[in-house]
């Protein structure tokens, strides 16, 4: 385990709008997330939890403050390097799946490697590997559209896994699923967290899901109001 935190922020502030209509989505957020943690970012809508995830995932730049990825100041990285970092080290799972529904499961899963410029045979090999992990090998040739919601989210997890990420960002991963399939997806994510030591950062307002994480960060009006570690779970702050 690296001694440096996977992601660290210092006085992170994100402001939308100008002067009179100015909204502070994030207000001096400082935190450190270490390898292998499972972190839930919790808050009401408008609390800034999505913005925090976007900034941590380098999808958005802060108005001020610092984001460090593996000890490196991300605000000093070039656009290319940021794109590369997201492609190589991060995985994304979204509530609405975001798949190319007319394309096959296999092609959807391979997309990050295609973007990375990895050759076709290797893409396919790795895709079959991750499909095995999410138990969807038999659906590789199926059209993404023909899958159930739970299956779709598992395809998305496979897609997030294919580049061997350090961190998986999940934005309400069970928000569109019923409780049974939701639980299955949750189990999958936490198993990956345990077995592959992948850091999980989950944005949710589902208290049960948040409780399963090793750490809960509560946001209100862009400020961290509570940062607690669940001690009865494996993991902790480093």
């Amino acid at each position, binding site marked *: 385990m690296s001694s440096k935190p996977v992601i660290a922020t210092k006085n992170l502030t994100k402001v939308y709008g100008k002067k009179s209509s100015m909204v502070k989505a994030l207000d001096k957020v400082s935190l450190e997330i270490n390898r292998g943690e499972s972190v839930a970012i919790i808050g009401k809508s408008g609390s800034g939890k999505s913005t925090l995830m976007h900034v941590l995932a380098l999808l*958005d730049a802060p108005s001020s403050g610092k984001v460090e990825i593996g000890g490196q100041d991300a605000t000093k990285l070039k*656009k290319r390097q940021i794109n590369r970092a*997201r*492609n190589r080290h*991060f995985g*994304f799972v979204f509530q*609405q799946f975001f798949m190319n529904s007319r394309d096959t499961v296999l092609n959807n899963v391979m*997309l990050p490697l295609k973007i*990375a410029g990895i050759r076709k045979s290797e893409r396919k090999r790795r895709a079959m590997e991750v499909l095995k992990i999410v138990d969807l090998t038999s659906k590789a040739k199926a059209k993404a559209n023909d899958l159930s919601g739970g299956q779709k989210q598992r395809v998305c997890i496979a897609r997030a896994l294919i580049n061997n990420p350090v961190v998986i960002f999940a934005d309400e991963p069970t928000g569109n699923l019923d409780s049974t399939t939701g639980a299955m997806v949750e189990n999958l994510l936490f198993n990956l967290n345990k077995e592959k030591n992948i850091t999980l950062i989950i944005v949710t307002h589902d208290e049960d899901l948040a409780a399963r994480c090793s750490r809960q960060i509560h946001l209100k009006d862009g400020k961290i109001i509570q940062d607690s570690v669940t001690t009865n779970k494996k993991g902790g702050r480093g």
Partner: protein
Amino acid sequence: MKLPDIIRNANSNLFRNKGRTFLTILAVFIGSFTIIATSAIRTGVSNYIDAQLDAAGGEGYVEIMPKALQELMQSMMSFGSSGPTEYNPETNSTEMTIISPDDMKKISKIPGIQSVKGARNVSVEYIASDKTNKKYLIMPNALPTDRINIDIAEGRLIKINSDLPEITLQPGYATALGYKSDADIIGEMIELGVVEEATMKLQTVKAEVVGVLNKSIINMGRSWINEALQEKILDVIYAGMPESYRNMTVFATAEWDKSLGDEGLEKIKDELDKLGFVGTTINDQIGMVKAFFDAIILVFTIFGGIALLAASIGIINTLFMAVQERTREIGLMKAIGLGKGKIFLTFSIEAISLGFWGSAIGVGVAYLAKIIINPIASDTFLKDLPGFNLMEFDVPLLACLILLVMAVAFLAGTLPARRAANKDPIEALRYE
């Protein structure tokens, strides 16, 4: 993302909405086909004219006529619309409308002119042979120079300075005169009927057929004769008349030094102008027809260009719709690390593909049209012009056209491609 993957992606994206893609390609096709077909006809016509020009000796000689005669002819032609032209003894006297032996000397001294010959009145009544009783009309002309390349079907061109009277005939005379084929008449003696102008008595002159010409639009039915035959005909026509009659001429043909190029030719024409003559080459005569033809071609090309312009607006529209539809996909790809440049490239390649397919199909259909139309044209309205292929493809020109259409499509695609490239991934993922 590697370039082959981007190209594959772009093309499979195009076929997600087959109907829309097909219609856009159809629009590009209509514009490209118009331009390609017109340019093929243009190439066909100019190839034919060039071949004919070469066959007629190209720009090897200048035809000379007095300016006063040209003016007289023009004033007669335009009489109906402009009324009579006032007589001016300085410029309009009969003396000014002929080329005198003195003038010939002056013309021959113009630098760049190698030789000059006056066109004599060598009109004959008929041509006949001993194989048949039938007699045929013929228009012989003294060949100004045998250093030019004339399109011969059988035998050879006449030798100008040969002591023996020689003639090359237009196609068709051989069989009309009772010979089996063009080859059969070579080396045979034929008979020309010539009338003495003073007495109207009919005489005959014999000449050897040394060659048969190919059909041509430029020779205009001229059968070429050599000096020896010309002199024999003139002997009959001007029998008993003063020598000056015989030497009178209104047209002359001068050979010029081709190595002087167009500039040299212009200088020669200027010199002729100073002496009171007009010099024209075959190119000048063809030039007028060509200019008219080129104007028609230009109009069609402009139509094609307008159609292409409309098609490129279609491309813009198609791609804007595609960008709209794929907003979330673009957002996702950007989120998982695809750079701005590559998204721009994907949409640009889609635009270029639309241009490529449209113009490639245009080339294909134009090629089919060529295969179908050329034989039909050759059998009907181009029947009398052997070697005239209505449509001909100039391959480098076609390649340039396809590239041009692709470039236009690319330019059209830049607008939507930029919009796609500049999408903010977060906004795009939120898009419903």
